[in-house]
């Protein structure tokens, strides 16, 4: 149930993020919207790996290595999300820097102002 909820929310976040990114013409707002979509993706990925009634994939006293297979949830999506988050922040930082420089060039954050290249 939680997994479904989280997943649905994740998808919704992606859509909201996309909508924001595709309709807002302000560069910074587009970037903000993309971070929301990224969060949504992360949520979906983690939700996919969730298994009801199991614990985090860390072995300790309560989860001995021997019966880990029956006790823990799928660790792989979590590993993937870690990577995805870091990549996401890298891209966001980069986009922000671009936005800054674009603003420096045209004194505007309106994406419709950057149409020198076309056709």
């Amino acid at each position: 149930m939680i997994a479904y909820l989280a997943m649905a929310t994740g998808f919704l976040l992606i859509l909201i993020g996309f909508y924001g990114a595709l309709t807002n013409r302000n560069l910074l707002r587009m970037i903000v919207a993309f971070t929301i979509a990224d969060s949504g993706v992360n949520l979906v990925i983690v939700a996919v790996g969730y298994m009801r009634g199991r614990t985090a994939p860390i072995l300790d006293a309560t989860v001995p290595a021997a019966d880990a297979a029956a006790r823990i949830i799928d660790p792989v999506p979590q590993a993937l999300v870690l990577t995805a988050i870091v990549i996401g922040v890298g891209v966001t930082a980069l986009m922000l820097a671009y936005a800054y420089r674009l603003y420096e060039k045209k004194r505007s954050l309106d994406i419709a102002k950057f149409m020198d290249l076309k056709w």
Partner: protein
Amino acid sequence: MVNALFIIAAALAAAFLLGLLKEQWRGAAYAVTLVALGFMTWISADWAWAFAMNGAAPVDIFTAGTEPPFAINLRMGRPEAVLTLIVNLTGLLSALAMKDALLALGRRAMAVLLVATMAFCGIILTRDIFNLFVFFELAAISTAGLILLSDDDRALSAGFKYLIVSQVISVFLLIGIIFAYHATGTLNIDGMADAAQALLPGGMQAFALAFFLMFMALVAELKPFPANGWALDIYESAHPAYSAIFSAAAGTASLYAVDKLLLIGGAAWLPAATGIGIVTFVGANLLALPQTKDRRLLGYSSVAQIGLILAVLGQRDVLGDLTSFIALGLLVAHSVAKAGLYWLSGLIAGRELTAWAALRGHPLMVFAFATFLCLLVGLPPFPGFYAKWELARVLAAEGRLALLAAILFGALVEAGYLFRWFGHAIKRDKPAEEISCAPFSVAAVCIAVVAGWALGLLWGEMAGFLFGRSNLLLALPLLFALAFLLLDFLPAWLKNTLAIAGLAGFFALTWTEYDPLRLIFAIIFTLGGAIVLLASFSAHGRRIGFYPAAMLMYAGMVMLIRATDTFDFFAAWELLTVGSYFLILRGKHSEPHALSYLVFSLGGAFLILMGFALAAGSGVSPRLTFDIASLSQLAQPVAPWVFLLLAIGFMTKTAAIGLHIWLPGAHAEAETDVSPMVSGILLKAGLYGLFVLLMSMGKQQLYGVELTTLMLWIGALTALLGNLMAIFQEDAKRLLAYSSIGQMGYALFGLALMNHLGWLMALMFVINHYIYKSMLFLAVGGVAKRTGTRAMYQMGGLITLMPLSFIAVLIGIIAMSGVPPLSGFGGRWIFYNAILDTDQRLPMIILFFSGPIAFLYLFRLIHTIFLGQLKDEHRKLKEAPFWVVVPQMIYVVLLLAFAVVPGIALRRVDEYMNQFFPEGGLDWSGLLITSNYGYWNPVAIMIIVGCIFMTLFGWLLFVNRRAQKVKQFNIVFAAERPYRPETTHFAWNFFAPYRKALGFLVQPFATRFWDAVTGSLHAAADFTRRFYTGNGQTYAIQLVGFVVVVFLLARGI
């Protein structure tokens, strides 16, 4: 061999190491970068060598000491080795080409370059889907960074647009990956593929959707049309050396990623790949048409090429093992060419296509340019050609003709705009700025050129290995032609001597190998070529570029008659087309004409290719390469289609009506000694093709229509309209060109008669037309050279100044008009005898009409140039240059000889044709030639006419022995005195009454039709490209829209 992981490790280590260097030590940083890239390249090369030469087995590389699917693994196999080699080499050479930019931006930029190259290699090497995602992100981010190397400040916005799009892509990819993982329990691509076998056919929807998302994400990296505006902006604004990477390396890597992904998707997704690929190929090529900016044009072309390869990957189900041969062939050709072109564009200051005229005066760079274009278009002997060939064969065999047609159409459009560009470079005004000669960049370009030719050699070897063919590039005639590239520094006279010796020598070496029919063509192509080349002795200086082009054409023609199978035939056909294109392009104003020549010729060539493919597909042969003669085994319903395609293809070369509009300009604007080559000799290649076609296929019926009858009509109409158009020309060379159209119509007609004498007549025209058209073109060319104009009405009265040219023209027109006793009469005589044997009477009537019309333009030719009033400004003209006159005199002798003893050429052919048409041959008893209907004694005619003429001439001399030459104006002129030569020389609009009566027949319908076709293509393209608004957000919307549309289509299907 070094573990392929070292490619990644080395790049990263070097990139991190750069951080330790001081910002100021840029030289050192650059050196580190080059060493690292070199090392990476060496690893790939080492592997590629091992796979190619030592037959090494593919190696799986495990990381973390754990076997897949539990840890990420990489694979180094044959394709990986080649592809990483492409990537690394492009990276290395681009690093050379953008040395200045790298040094200006410092170590960070170099690190990014290293990481980018590594990322592309990673995409190729990895077998893990999520790892693929990571490498893609690395590639995307480093691309966004490297765009900054450009000195074009619009690059910044292009980078941002790319980042937006890559965000969208990565969301789709991640969602796809996680659901695919959930469905299959693995992230390993091979593991997923195995699992998919169990999942997909049952249509487990979630997995199919997950795959769809992954697939679309990776396809989006291929910049599919129309969701690719962002990519074009990058191509246009990035540093050209980076664009080279973006086109060659990124394209390569993404394609291989899609290829890997298709392993998972299986056969069900192949049509989608094909569909997207072919839409991209055709769409992008069309949009490139109205493009005037070089780098953007190359961008469109890159997109198109990648699309084509994607389409090929999508045909894996039918291509089977050939997929990699074809896709790789297209890919390496694309990569080398595109990288080379981008590096080249870095040397050029202007961004307009016309700015490439700066290359002129740098023969090496022009050669590089030409090499890249030929590589791209897939002309022999480059890999794309082999790929195109096999692809056509399989597609036709599988009945995927629509796809094949779309591919060929796209390729034709591509060739059109690429060679238009080449035309600009050769013909347009040279811009003020010289090209920069940065040694590293030039080196990169040169290496690409060498790589291109090496690939040609390699693919030739591979094709030889796979299909048992001899290597095209090593064919003696081609090698000989290419040798002139190396000898181009020699003076023209020396090269000319070599060329003539080569042609004659080749004939001497091989003449025993031909049957009589081929022997005649061989003589025309080699010895005939040698005679025309005599005229080239009149050229001074080095004449850069002439000999490679001319000899390429001759090589193609020689290879054409030596070809016994379809592959050699087609390759030769393309070679002679390219060679002649370069040759024609040399004319002063021939840019548009050379282009239309090329487009028509390639269009024709593609039809031929389709014809061969269709034939091969219908079971004549398991391979496309088959003995041409076995075309005869074709049966209904395919045979007539094959016939139609091949016939139209060949008729494009002979300029049959409707397909003729390229000819007048191309022949007229060519150089003096080139016109006879392309008219007198080159046209015969088309006739040869038709001969071969009819010899092997004979009559064919399509929907009850006898196709040879159709040809008969086309021939007759061509003869009529060609001749009609000729009489209205004011330009002497154009007149001759239109006349050639008419003459080819006669020959076509003769062939289509499908009887013994018809063919003999065609052959007679082949010989005659070669002789007199070469002669006339040389004569007229010589005159034009001296008078500085080709407009006939500006000449006049040149007979006394240029008597030898006059004699040549006189003999030429007597022969051509068919007046006895010269050789043209023989053609007419055979013609009459031939038509008596056939039932097709209506087209003959048209031909009857065109006969006397020829007389009109011929008279006009000689009258307006040589007779009438001499112009004041021409009074001091000299005879045409010695070396232009020499071949003309040879032709005069040949014509007379052929007129008296046509048997020397025709007798053996006549016998040879008995195997095709045992009936209706000629009887050659003594000097008398007898047919079923009539007889003809050329020697007697010559003697009788000669005697009568000499007798009367003697008589006139006797009664009028004191005749004195009077001044030109000393004429009886109805109560007026002549005023000036210009007003007294009746020359302009000579046949005005004819225009009044029949001018409606020469409305330029064909020209208008083709203009409308190209015009609407351009208009459509120009309209469609407005779609690329330049707004990054719109591009992202388009991408999402693209995904949705494909989704809907895929669901619909």
